[in-house]
């Protein structure tokens, strides 16, 4: 049996361990881009500093779609890690129900509750039968339009301040040989429809579709605008121009090769690492510059139930890590690098970049539930399949798209 954490811990013990009994805690996550990696390193550093234990980093390639299966199958397969990141939402709900995740209630009580969470709705997916099984550690939003200052300088136009201006500038951009919309292959496109939905369709539409699963709303005029915008968007995207990863799109934006991109706020981390300065090298438009609410999901940490016979020190290390993740210090260090919003605002965020400041301002209006957050992974996968197909196959009309979207939402649970 390879309980990595345990074995490693025992090995250290046998060697007559150096410091006061340091144990290894394996942490899985899929933060592999430059900005993300720098952010998780902040947690690792705090954890090792404050507890003296070792953070065994298991980064998994392929983001949610590639890494989730590995994480889930390891937990189901009886080979759990010490802690793991997953999206805040329903991906792990069955794992919680099956009793595979550690109930964090005692730890939370020790900390005096979770009232400091800026939006209590974030905690909903973590709750099950009165227990709390995960800790959201940040708020992520897909709802950002990133635009390149350099590209607009090149064509001599002002940098757009909202989606409509941005769309209007496409012909000029194309004439100048600049790609209006940059895109990475794979999952990044799957977030775009949701952003258009909240930006163009508005809060009511998001709630009706993601929360209430209303197929009527999908067939309505508001969603149609979204589908048409998507149709418009796919006309300026060609497969040959796609790059391998979203971080590459960030570089293209800084270089002015690409005029804009819709992507989640974690792109900010990569832009920062690449030396970009918000407001100078790029502009960020939350909710496409149109709305005043962000759809939010984010990342949570889960602590799987470790098998019997696990060194109690490892179990203690889980608890210690849990506390560090949501402590003011952990929140500040991590989110400043990650480019996401912290789950608590009782900390000094003056160091946050202008994009994050905008987002924090919008948090006061409440979060809208994102697709990640409100839909099961099965439904998300279906929508992703649909979006991937729509992007690539022009023979699928807007009507087809709306109808198929509606039928997926209809059967969603």
């Amino acid at each position: 049996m390879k309980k990595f954490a345990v074995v490693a811990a025992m090995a250290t013990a046998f060697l007559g361990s150096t410091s006061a009994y340091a144990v290894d805690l394996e942490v899985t996550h899929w933060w592999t881009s430059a900005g993300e990696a720098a952010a998780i390193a902040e947690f690792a550093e705090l954890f090792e500093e404050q507890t003296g234990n070792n953070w065994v980093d298991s980064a998994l390639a392929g983001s949610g779609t590639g890494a989730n299966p590995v994480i889930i199958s390891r937990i189901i397969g009886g080979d759990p890690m010490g802690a793991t990141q997953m999206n805040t939402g329903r991906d792990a709900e069955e794992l919680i129900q099956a009793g595979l995740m550690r109930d964090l209630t005692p730890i939370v009580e020790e900390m005096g509750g979770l009232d400091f969470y800026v939006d209590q709705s974030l905690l909903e997916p973590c709750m099950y039968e009165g227990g709390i099984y995960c800790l959201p550690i940040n708020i992520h939003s897909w709802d950002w339009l990133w635009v390149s200052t350099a590209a607009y300088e090149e064509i001599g136009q002002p940098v757009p301040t909202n989606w409509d201006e941005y769309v209007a500038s496409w012909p000029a951009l194309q004439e100048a040989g600049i790609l209006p919309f940059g895109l990475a292959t794979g999952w990044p496109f799957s977030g775009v429809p949701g952003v258009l939905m909240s930006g163009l369709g508005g809060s009511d539409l998001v709630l009706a579709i993601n929360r209430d699963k209303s197929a009527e709303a999908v067939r309505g005029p508001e969603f149609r605008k979204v589908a048409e915008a998507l149709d418009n968007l796919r006309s300026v995207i060609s497969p040959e121009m796609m790059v391998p990863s979203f971080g590459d799109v960030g570089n293209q934006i800084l270089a002015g090769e690409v005029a804009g991109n819709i992507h989640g706020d974690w792109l900010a981390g990569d832009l920062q690492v690449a030396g970009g300065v918000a407001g100078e090298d790029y502009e960020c438009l939350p909710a496409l510059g149109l709305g005043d609410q962000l759809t939010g999901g984010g990342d949570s940490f889960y602590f799987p139930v470790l098998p019997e016979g696990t060194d109690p020190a490892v179990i203690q290390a889980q608890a210690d890590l849990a506390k560090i993740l949501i402590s003011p210090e952990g929140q500040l260090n991590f989110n400043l690098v990650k480019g996401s919003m912290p789950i608590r605002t009782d900390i000094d965020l003056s160091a946050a970049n202008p994009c994050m400041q905008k987002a924090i301002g919008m948090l006061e209006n409440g979060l809208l539930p994102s697709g990640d957050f409100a839909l099961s992974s099965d439904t998300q996968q279906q929508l992703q399949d649909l979006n991937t197909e729509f992007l690539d196959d022009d023979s699928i009309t807007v009507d087809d798209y709306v109808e198929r979207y509606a039928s997926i939402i209809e059967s969603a649970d």
Partner: protein
Amino acid sequence: MADTAVDTGRGAGNTGRRGFLRKTFLHNVPAKIAALPMMATVLVVFIGCTIWTVYYSFTNSRLLPSGDFIGFEQYERLFGTSRWNVSVWNLVTYGAMSLVFTLGFGFLLAVLMDQKIRFESAFRTIMLYPFALSFIVTGLVWQWIMNPTLGLQGTMRNLGWESFTFDWIANPRMVLFALLIAGLWQGVGFCMVLMLAGLRGVDEEIWKAARVDGIPTWRTYISVVIPMMRGVLVTAVVLIGSGIVRLYDLVVALTNGGPGISSEVPAKYVYNYMFGAGNIGQGLAAATMMLLTVLIIMVPWAYLEFGGKGRRS
């Protein structure tokens, strides 16, 4: 299937001199113990797991296999899903092309190799080496060759052939041909080896007789040799066919299903829904359809191979 093997072994050691059934039974205990792994594999994996999969494909199991029985709902959804239908269609198209070309080129090359050519061994070594490589390696090499900007297309354009186009990997209508080129590269040599063995199994007398009768070579191949190679041909079809149904690694490495969903295949759908999307019922239903496909290939073969023999004897 290798009947010779069965007969020679009969009665060799299992009865000893004492011949009672019960003694025989006891006598074979070590053999039975030794065969336990095989029995376990057959009973637990090949039979047990298959039945389990078919059974649970009728449930609404999500992340964990614990759902309720829901009849054919997973299958209804499966065939109402564009990605699955595209996957099936891709597999049928790719499979038909792959089967025809693998057999065709395999046979052609085997015939050519059988013409008393020089360097036969060198030719064979070159044709078969891709078969030693994994589909991942195969997919990645061809992904690089087919890279639109820096691969073959880019090279030809840089060399002055401006209109040269070889962007199949990025072209939804052509991407299956991209897969085919890589798949053939890997598999044709193997088919050639099988066919060559079959050709060399044909009696020299047949050729002599055909020559005496003045039958042209190509006609001898078509009307005499090919029918005589039925066994090898059927084997090749079954092998290539069951390999095609499993097609997975190559797609993952070469296109990962893209552009869009235009090179998706069933095995990938199964994997995604089982492990990625946390919908085991859906994944198992798709797996069951793959099983059904294999049965459709296998049952006629088994009938030809075994049923046919039964009639003859």
